[in-house]
């Protein structure tokens, strides 16, 4: 520490206003470490897109276009009907959202507008536990409990069906939707609630007519993110939807079906033997790119809604 300028009228030279060289060097070194970490993270992000693009483009260039529009998804026979796996994905995501949207939103409104502070302290961690269950576990649960105990007795569907998988995916994304919507409801300023109560509104009116509309952007964001997660969910579908290997085009949720994600796992598990055989290896990346593009689009859209919430309050 250089001495203080206690004597009157002392003049400084510029070098007095510098720190010790060692201290400056250390500062620069550490900064470059952090910069390298940030840079590497970005390189990795780029690598994802590039690795998908390269193989996916190879597939698109070499595939016979008519193979993309056939009766079903049987990659080992050169039938790459994209509609089949997109349909399966949509059916399962649809079932999932039928479950998760009401449950997640209901839970969010209850937690944010009705629950006492004490019950919230108990219920929120419980939801967090639900959120922490690995999807492979929910897949097993769908196959061994949901299907035989709920879906089969009611409908007589086969053990592996898209409805059971969809229900399990719904359970998986319920906590996600609940927690993001709750954040959005929580962000509604309390003066809006007070204004409503001040006019003599009941709690029901306040929460449904004032708070939920005010948080609608955040709620839409939560639902979009939920759809995105449902579309990208893999293990539940791979275990419980019954689309091993290939599948015909199917829109009935009570039948087995194939999704983009399950098609990818099926290919990858057998891809040792598959490599070199026509385009199966590359088709994996084409489906991956499609999945990436869809989920990225949904996430960006959801992001835009979240930003709208932020700019409002």
């Amino acid at each position, binding site marked *: 520490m250089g001495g203080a300028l206690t004597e009157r009228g002392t003049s400084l030279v510029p070098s007095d206003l510098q720190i010790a060289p060692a*201290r400056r060097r250390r*500062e620069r070194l550490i*900064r470059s470490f*952090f*910069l390298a*970490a*940030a840079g590497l*993270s*970005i390189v990795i*992000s780029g690598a*994802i897109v590039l*690795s*998908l693009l390269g193989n996916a483009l190879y597939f698109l260039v070499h595939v016979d276009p008519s193979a993309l529009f056939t009766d079903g998804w049987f990659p080992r026979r050169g039938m790459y009907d994209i509609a089949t796996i997109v349909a399966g994905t949509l059916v399962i995501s649809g079932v999932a959202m039928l479950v998760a949207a*009401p*449950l*997640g939103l*209901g*839970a969010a*409104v*209850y937690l944010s507008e*009705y629950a006492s502070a004490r019950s919230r302290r108990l219920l929120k*961690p*419980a*939801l*967090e*536990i*639900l959120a922490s*269950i*690995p*999807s492979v*576990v*929910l*897949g*097993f*649960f769908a*196959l*061994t409990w949901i299907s035989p105990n709920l879906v089969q007795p009611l409908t007589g569907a086969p053990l592996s069906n898209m409805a059971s998988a969809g229900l399990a995916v719904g359970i998986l994304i319920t*906590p996600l939707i*609940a927690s993001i919507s709750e954040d959005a409801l929580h962000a509604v300023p309390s003066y809006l609630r007070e204004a409503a109560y001040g006019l003599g509104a009941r*709690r*029901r009116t306040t929460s*449904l007519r004032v708070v939920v509309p005010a948080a609608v952007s955040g709620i839409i964001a939560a639902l979009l993110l939920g759809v*995105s*997660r449902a579309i*990208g*969910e*893999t*293990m539940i579908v791979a*275990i419980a939807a019954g689309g091993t290997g290939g599948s015909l085009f199917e829109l009935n949720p009570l039948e087995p079906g194939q999704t983009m*994600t399950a098609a*990818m*796992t099926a290919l*990858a*598990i057998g891809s040792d033997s598959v490599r070199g055989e026509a385009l199966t290896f590359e088709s*994996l*990346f084409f489906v*991956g790119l499609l*999945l*990436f593009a869809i989920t*990225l689009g949904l996430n960006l859209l959801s992001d835009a809604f979240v930003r709208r919430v932020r700019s409002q309050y």
Partner: protein
Amino acid sequence: MTAPVQALSARGVVERRLRSDGGDRLGLVLQVALLLSLLISLGVLVVLIGDIVVRSLPVFAERPVDFLGSALSSRPARAGILQGILGSVLLMGFVAALALPLGIGAAVYLEEYARDTRAARLIRTNIRNLAGVPAIVYGLLGLAVFVSSLGLGRTLVAGGLTLAVLVLPVVVITTSEALRAVPATIREAAFGVGATRWETIRSHVLPYAAPGILTGTILSLARAFGETAPLLMVGAIAGTFTSTAIGDMLTGSYTALPTIVYSWSGQPQDEFRALTAAAIVVLMVVILLVNASAILLRNRYDRKW
């Protein structure tokens, strides 16, 4: 509207109005419906845990130690999950050693060093979106980059790298959030007495943000522990460890606990259902313990200052 009120006994009317709030049946119905949606979600959790524990009981009743300590086998009576536990622990080691320093470092750079330029904002958006990319797509990255291009093959190293990349954006995001929660006045105070940026970060910003960073990273590790799809893509499914020498474990074929759950769940025999449930119990115990410790940590440090 005021005229009839004045015509009647004002006091009586006011009293009746003030007391009438108990009759909002619709409100009650709504409240019950909302509560029900929450309870259904949590009810599923209870059923799930109960069902799986019951299914696993035969295994834990007959051969608890043997189950945990045995290798994989196609004969249900001899099959165990030791290989999976070893594989998952090693994978987590990779994730912790790679994703945590990189992710925390990247977040520190983005929050504390980088100027708020358009490029920085673009990178932040990019990382946020990476966190929403389906796990299986990370598996494809691992397959293309680590398994094929880098020639690592279907090894534990490739699997570990893949999971680390998967977790990285989550670590960056949670660390960034924790850093942003540090009041600007603390940084100003440190700069104001002549601290450099790193001195400010090390002595004040990181300690203040540590509980948040720790909680977030622990939760992301728990998530990686149960992650299955990307491991299937990079070949953890068919493999087993052929020896327990560390070098062989890293460079040979491997497996992990969640992939064992997956491959067993596809076996038709009833005995494998029990084994799958038992493996799930082990998986869930680890994940719940890790989560619980993260939540405890958060609650404890929340009130420190």
